[in-house]
């Protein structure tokens, strides 16, 4: 460990120190090993995460997002040395600074900076992964917005991932401050203006808001039973189906009109043209069963041809006729 380091924070993944480093002050982020993991796996995971963090941090810095400058990566000790940014954490500003709490102009100014920064981050396909108001700072010297902590960052060009990124920030905003809805609207506004591909991300965001951060298992066919009035779930089902078994789902879709609030959620502009048929209700369970039966029959037919054995159909499974049961 570096000389004269002072611990300033300890999290679940890493310890943060400050220390003098080659004439400057550095933040030293040391990822420690986890005793509950196998040592080899632990080493591998930690190294990969350190590298990923350093890469994302520097990629952002290079593309003009204000982040702490990267000083040194010590892969052997899983430590990253970076610039010590003097400034205030946005969360503290919104919670304790009376200027920011009362002054709408100041808030909008801050929101605009955040929106622009996020647009830049997403522009180069980096997903921050942990966008909260605690991971945003205002630099003391020039009041520029600094994005920190790329510990959960990764590279992806999917609008889905970007939308989840925004969603996480929205949740963080809503929980810090009573007026934060307006502020978040302002952020999205700046984001839209500064990021060309924002349309896809924002329409995804509408979906993510409805279902939450995680894509849960019930998005898969057959497991949910009935899917009613859920715009987001619906759309995902069709996407998935069109990949795995387009014929089955699109041909059997029973289309009826949903309740008014459902149309409101969808919005006219977000879903148009070929996606109109999404408005409706379908019984996924029966479709899932039908699809499984088809698959089962196909599998049996194949096996029959290969082994030349007759099978008795027992519903979900089948038994070959005249063949003794296998030893377990």
């Amino acid at each position, binding site marked *: 460990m*570096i*000389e*004269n380091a002072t611990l300033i924070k300890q999290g679940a993944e890493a310890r943060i120190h400050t*220390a*003098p*480093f*080659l*004439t*400057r002050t550095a933040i030293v982020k040391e990822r420690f090993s986890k005793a509950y993991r196998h040592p080899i796996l632990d080493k591998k995971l930690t190294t990969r995460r350190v*590298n990923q963090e*350093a*890469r994302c941090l*520097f990629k952002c*810095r*290079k*593309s*003009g997002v204000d982040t702490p*400058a*990267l*000083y*040194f*990566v*010590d*892969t*052997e000790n899983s430590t990253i*040395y970076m*610039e010590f940014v003097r400034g205030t954490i946005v969360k503290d500003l919104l919670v304790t600074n009376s200027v920011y709490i009362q002054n709408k102009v100041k808030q909008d100014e801050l929101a605009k900076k955040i929106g622009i920064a996020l647009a830049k981050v997403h522009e180069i396909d980096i997903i921050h992964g942990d966008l909260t108001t605690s991971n945003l700072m205002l630099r003391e010297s020039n009041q520029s917005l600094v994005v920190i902590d790329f510990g959960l960052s990764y590279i992806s060009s999917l609008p889905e991932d970007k939308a989840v990124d925004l969603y996480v920030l929205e949740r963080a905003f809503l929980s810090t401050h009573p007026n934060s809805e307006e502020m978040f609207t302002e952020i999205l506004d700046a984001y839209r203006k500064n990021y060309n591909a924002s349309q896809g991300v924002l329409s995804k965001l509408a979906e993510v808001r409805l279902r939450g951060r995680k894509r849960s298992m019930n998005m898969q066919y057959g497991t949910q039973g009935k899917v009613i009035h859920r715009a987001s779930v619906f759309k995902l089902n069709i996407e998935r189906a069109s990949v795995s078994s387009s014929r089955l789902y699109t041909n059997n879709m029973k289309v009826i009109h949903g309740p008014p609030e459902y149309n409101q959620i969808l919005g006219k502009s977000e879903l148009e043209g070929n996606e109109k048929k999404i408005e409706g209700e379908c019984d996924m369970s029966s479709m899932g069963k039908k699809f499984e039966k088809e698959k089962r029959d196909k599998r049996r037919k194949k096996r029959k041809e290969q082994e030349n054995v007759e099978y008795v159909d027992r519903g979900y499974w089948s038994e070959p006729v005249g063949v003794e049961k296998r030893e377990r």
Partner: protein
Amino acid sequence: MQSFSLELYPTRGHIHISFYKNVTNAEDLRKRLLSHDQELSYAFIDAKVVLDQFQLLIAANDAVHHELHSLLKTYNINESLRRFGISNSSTSIVVVKVGGNAEEVKSHLSTLIHGEEADVGEFSNSVDISSIKKYYKIDNKVTDQKEMLDIIVGSIAIKSVS
């Protein structure tokens, strides 16, 4: 000449940085370097590509780190020498030495280099921004020197990762 300590490797000694102007024997020095002259165990760097002493310190720290952990992937320094090393026409030279006694290094260098020693802070005057931008792949939009230095330092640091 200025000396700096390496916080990470205090036992490796200090880093000495000197800057020489109006150097006349660059061609001779280069020739001796290429013929593996043991007397010249210094890093002779063209001042054109040095923006700030912090850049040198980060690079030196990285080099020491790689040396002590034997992480050097290649011994081929052809490209680096061509870009950052002195050329026959160099007149401003930065010299970096890891370890050794400051006084000895200073007196030894003054016999080796025919030129006038200048203050370390002065080498930002002889910097060639366009070649720095080319070597470190810095976007043309970047004009602020401080920001440029951040990107340079990051590029050096990220090299061991990617």
